[in-house]
C-alpha cells in the first residue's frame, strides 16, 4: 500500500517526465493499434472471404518444371523454344530443342480419368467432382461451323499451318493446357507458363479445355449438371429443348448453340453429321435435343484474325461424357494423326478437364495435402482458380498487412528501446532516492515495485490515449494506405500492359517478351489487337471478384474466358480496420510487455544498487 501511495505521489510529482513518457507510449500505442487493426482486417478478409463459398480446383501438370528438367541436357534458351513454336521461321536457328522427346515425356504425365477419380477418393474434403471432355470434330457438307469474316483468315492460317498444327495438337492435348488459345500461338503454352506461374494464370495450364487446334467444332462432354453449369464458355440458357441426360440411353443427344442452329437452319429433333477431325472417313450422327444461348457469350469472343472456328463458342456442341465414350472420343481413347513428314503420333481423342469442388478453402487445403499423401508427384500442381483469383485480389491488402507488420515491429522495437532508455536514465537519476529508501529500510523489492508501478501508471495512461487515437485513426489511415497500395499495383499492371503492347509489335521477340512480361500478358497472347484486350478485360471485371467473397466466388468459372483472369483483378480496396476488444487486448498485452521489459531494467538496476555505496558516493 505504501508502495502504491509512494508511486502515485511520484507520478504526480514528476509531471514533466511522465507526460513525456506517456506521449511516447501513446504514439507507440497508436501506431501499434493501426498496425494490429490492419493485420486483423487482412486476416479476416482472407479467412472469411472464402469461408463459406464453393471452391473448385484442378490438378495440372507442372510443365514449366518438367520442361526445364528435360532441357537441362540441351542448352537452348526458353525464348528460342517459344519462338520456334509460335514462329516456324525461327525453327531453323541452330540450337533446336528436342521437341519430340519432350512431348513424349510430357504426354506420359497426362493424368487419366481414373487417376483423377483416385485422387478425388483420396480426400474426404472433396465435396463433389465433375469433368468435361473436349474432342474436336470436323464439318461435313451438311453441317458447317459458324464463321464470320475474320475467321476466313483464321481458317487459312489454320490450313497453312495444318501440317504443324497436327503435331501442335498432339502436344496441346497431351499437355492439356492452352486455354482458349488460337492455334498460331497454340504452342505459346510454353510462353504461357510464365504468366501461369504468377498466380491466376496457372489454371491456364490446367484448365485445358478449348484447345482444338484442328477441326471445326468442339464436342464438349459433361459429366453432370454441375459441369454444365460451369461450362467453359460461360453460362447459357436454353432457348429451345432441354439439356441432354447423362445415361447411356441419352447417347448421341447434343445441344448446340443458337447461332450454330440458325446458321445451319437446324431445330430440336434434327440430326447432324460430323466427321472425325483427324479421320475424314469416320462420321458421327448426333441428335439435337436442345438449343442453347450463351448468356456470357461476348466474354468469350476471342476476336482477331487468329482464332479458330473450333474455339468459337458458337461452334461448341455440348453433350454428355457418355456420348463421347460411345463415340470413342473420350480421353481414354486415342486417335492417330499423321503429320506432313509422315510420322504417326497417337494422342488422346479428347482433353479431359477434371474439376474438384470443395465447400470451403480449408477443404481445398486439406485436399492439397491429401493428394500429396496419396502419391501425387511434385510434377503436378493442385490449383484453384477461385483461390488464386481471390488471393490476387488480396495482393494490396497483403502488402499492406506486411507493411503493417513491419511498422508494428519497428514501432515496438523503437518503443521498447526508448522506453528502456528512459527508464534507465530515470533510475540512474533517482539512484540517490533508491539509496535513501533502502537506507531507511525499504526493501529493494519494494523500491523496484514502486518504480514498476510508477512506470505502469504512466504507460497505461499513454496506452489508453494511444489506443483511443489509433482507434479513431485506424479506419481512414488504413484505407488511405490501402488505396496507395492498390494504386501501386494498378500502375504496375498498366505499365506491364503498356510494355507488353509495344513488345507485341515485334513478332520475333514476341514469345520471349510474352513470357517475360509476366502476369498481365496472356490476355492478348493470340493477337495484340486492343479489341480482344478490352473485351477480355471487361469480361473479367464483369465476372470477377470485387473484394467480397461472394464476388470472388462468382468468378468461380474463370476458365470460361480462359487464362485471362489474371489481368483485370479488382483489388480489395476497402478494409474494415476497426479496433475491437481483441485488438485492445493485444495492445494491452504489448503495452504490459513493453512496460515489463523496461521495468525489468529498472529492477535490475535497483537490485544492483547497494545503499551504502550510493550514499558513500554521495558524501
Amino acid at each position, binding site marked *: 500500500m505504501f508502495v502504491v*501511495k509512494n508511486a502515485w505521489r511520484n507520478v504526480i510529482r514528476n509531471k514533466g517526465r511522465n507526460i513525456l513518457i506517456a506521449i511516447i507510449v501513446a504514439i507507440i500505442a497508436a501506431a501499434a493499434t493501426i498496425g494490429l487493426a490492419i493485420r486483423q482486417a487482412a486476416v479476416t478478409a482472407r479467412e472469411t472471404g472464402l469461408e463459406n463459398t464453393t471452391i473448385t480446383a484442378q490438378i495440372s501438370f507442372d510443365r514449366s518444371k518438367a520442361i526445364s528438367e528435360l532441357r537441362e541436357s540441351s542448352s537452348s534458351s526458353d525464348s528460342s523454344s517459344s519462338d520456334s513454336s509460335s514462329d516456324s521461321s525461327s525453327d531453323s536457328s541452330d540450337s533446336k530443342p528436342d521437341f519430340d522427346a519432350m512431348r513424349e515425356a510430357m504426354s506420359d504425365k497426362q493424368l487419366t480419368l481414373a487417376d483423377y477419380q483416385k485422387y478425388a477418393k483420396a480426400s474426404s474434403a472433396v465435396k463433389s467432382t465433375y469433368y468435361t471432355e473436349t474432342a474436336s470434330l470436323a464439318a461435313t457438307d451438311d453441317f458447317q461451323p459458324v464463321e464470320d469474316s475474320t475467321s476466313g483468315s483464321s481458317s487459312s492460317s489454320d490450313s497453312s499451318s495444318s501440317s504443324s498444327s497436327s503435331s501442335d495438337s498432339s502436344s496441346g492435348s497431351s499437355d492439356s493446357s492452352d486455354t482458349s488459345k488460337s492455334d498460331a500461338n497454340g504452342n505459346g503454352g510454353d510462353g504461357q507458363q510464365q504468366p501461369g506461374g504468377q498466380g491466376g494464370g496457372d489454371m491456364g495450364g490446367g484448365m485445358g479445355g478449348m484447345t482444338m487446334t484442328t477441326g471445326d467444332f468442339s464436342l464438349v462432354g459433361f459429366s453432370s449438371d454441375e459441369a454444365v453449369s460451369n461450362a467453359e464458355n460461360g453460362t447459357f440458357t436454353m432457348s429451345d429443348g432441354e439439356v441432354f441426360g447423362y445415361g447411356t440411353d441419352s447417347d448421341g443427344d447434343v445441344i448446340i448453340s443458337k447461332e450454330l442452329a440458325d446458321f445451319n437452319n437446324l431445330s430440336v429433333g434434327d440430326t447432324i453429321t460430323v466427321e472425325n477431325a483427324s479421320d475424314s472417313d469416320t462420321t458421327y450422327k448426333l441428335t439435337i435435343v436442345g438449343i442453347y444461348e450463351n448468356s456470357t457469350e461476348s466474354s468469350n469472343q476471342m476476336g482477331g484474325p487468329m482464332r479458330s472456328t473450333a474455339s468459337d463458342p458458337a461452334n461448341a456442341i455440348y453433350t454428355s461424357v457418355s456420348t463421347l465414350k460411345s463415340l470413342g472420343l473420350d480421353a481414354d481413347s486415342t486417335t492417330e494423326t499423321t503429320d506432313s513428314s509422315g510420322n504417326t503420333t497417337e494422342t488422346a481423342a479428347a482433353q479431359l478437364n477434371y474439376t474438384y469442388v470443395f465447400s470451403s478453402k480449408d477443404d481445398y487445403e486439406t485436399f492439397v495435402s491429401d493428394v500429396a499423401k496419396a502419391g501425387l508427384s511434385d510434377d503436378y500442381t493442385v490449383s484453384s482458380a477461385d483461390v488464386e483469383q481471390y488471393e490476387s485480389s488480396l495482393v494490396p491488402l497483403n502488402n499492406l498487412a506486411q507493411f503493417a507488420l513491419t511498422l508494428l515491429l519497428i514501432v515496438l522495437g523503437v518503443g521498447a528501446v526508448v522506453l528502456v532508455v528512459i527508464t534507465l536514465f530515470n533510475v540512474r537519476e533517482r539512484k540517490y532516492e533508491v*539509496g535513501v529508501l*533502502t537506507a*531507511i*529500510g*525499504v526493501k529493494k523489492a519494494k523500491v523496484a515495485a514502486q518504480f514498476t508501478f510508477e512506470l505502469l501508471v504512466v504507460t497505461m495512461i499513454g496506452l489508453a490515449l494511444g489506443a483511443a487515437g489509433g482507434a479513431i485513426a485506424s479506419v481512414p489511415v488504413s484505407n488511405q494506405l490501402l488505396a496507395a497500395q492498390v494504386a501501386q499495383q494498378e500502375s504496375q499492371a498498366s505499365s506491364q500492359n503498356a510494355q507488353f503492347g509495344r513488345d507485341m509489335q515485334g513478332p520475333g521477340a514476341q514469345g520471349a517478351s510474352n513470357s517475360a512480361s509476366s502476369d498481365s500478358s496472356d490476355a492478348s497472347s493470340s493477337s495484340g489487337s486492343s479489341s480482344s484486350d478490352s473485351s477480355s478485360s471487361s469480361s473479367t471485371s464483369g465476372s470477377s471478384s470485387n473484394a467480397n467473397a461472394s464476388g470472388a466466388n462468382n468468378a468461380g468459372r474463370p476458365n470460361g474466358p480462359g487464362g485471362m483472369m489474371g489481368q483485370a483483378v479488382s483489388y480489395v480496396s476497402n478494409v474494415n480496420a476497426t479496433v475491437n476488444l481483441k485488438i485492445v487486448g493485444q495492445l494491452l498485452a504489448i503495452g504490459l510487455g513493453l512496460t515489463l521489459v523496461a521495468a525489468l531494467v529498472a529492477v535490475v538496476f535497483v537490485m544492483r544498487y547497494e*545503499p*551504502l555505496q550510493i*550514499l558513500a558516493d*554521495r558524501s
Partner: protein
Amino acid sequence: MTATTATNATSATTAAKPILELDNVSYSYTKGGKKVLKNITHAFRIGEVHSITGPSGAGKTTMLSLISGLANPTEGKVLYNGKDLAKQDRYDYRSHDIGVIFQSFNLLPQLTVAENIMLSMDASGKKFDKPKKELAVDLLEQVHLPAEYANERILHLSGGEQQRVAIARALSYGPSVIVADEPTGNLDMGTQEDIMSIFRTLAHEQGVCVIIVTHSPEVAAASDEVFELAPLRRR
C-alpha cells in the same frame, strides 16, 4: 523534556544491559583487501550517549555502517539484543530498530519536511496511534523546529535545519538505537549544543541508545562514554 513521541518504549531500568555489541569485528571493503577495522569489540547500552572518535581513516564511518546494518562485518559479529545482525533481515532492522542520521542527511529533496518524516514511518510498517502528520509536527517540535516547516521543501532549509529534520526522521518510528554520523560537523557552536542536548534528552529520558560518530572534542566531552578508534598501522 516531556515530549511525547511514539518511542517511549523502555525506561532507564535496563540501562546496564548492552543493546548492541561489536564482537571482535573486522571489515575490509574488498575480499582479502586492506582491513579498515580490525578486531573491534565494544558494547553499547541504552540510556547512554556514546561517542566514537578517532582520526580520519580510522574507520569511524565504516563502524557506523556496520552498526546500522548497511554492511556486514568481514569477520566477527554485530549483535543486536544478543542476536547476530548478519542473520537477521537488515532492512527490517534499519526500518524498525535503528535510526540513522547520515552525515549528508540523505533527505529526499523533492519531498517536504513532513513527507520525509512520514516516509520513514511508512517504511517501518508500524502502526501509530495518531495521524502521521501530527506525529511529524510533534517531532519537529522535539528537534526545535517550528511546526510551519512541515510543508517546506527540504531544499529550502539550511544545513542545521536539515540536520534537525534528519534527526526527526530517525526518531519518527521510535527506534531503540540512534546513530549519528558527524551530526555537528558543519554547524555553529550554538546549534551544536542544542543538538547535543536533544541527543542527551533522548538517551537519558527516553532510554534510547545514542551513538555519535564525531571528531569534535566538544561532542565527545558531552557524551557519556567515548570509544576511541586507533588509527590502523599502515602496511
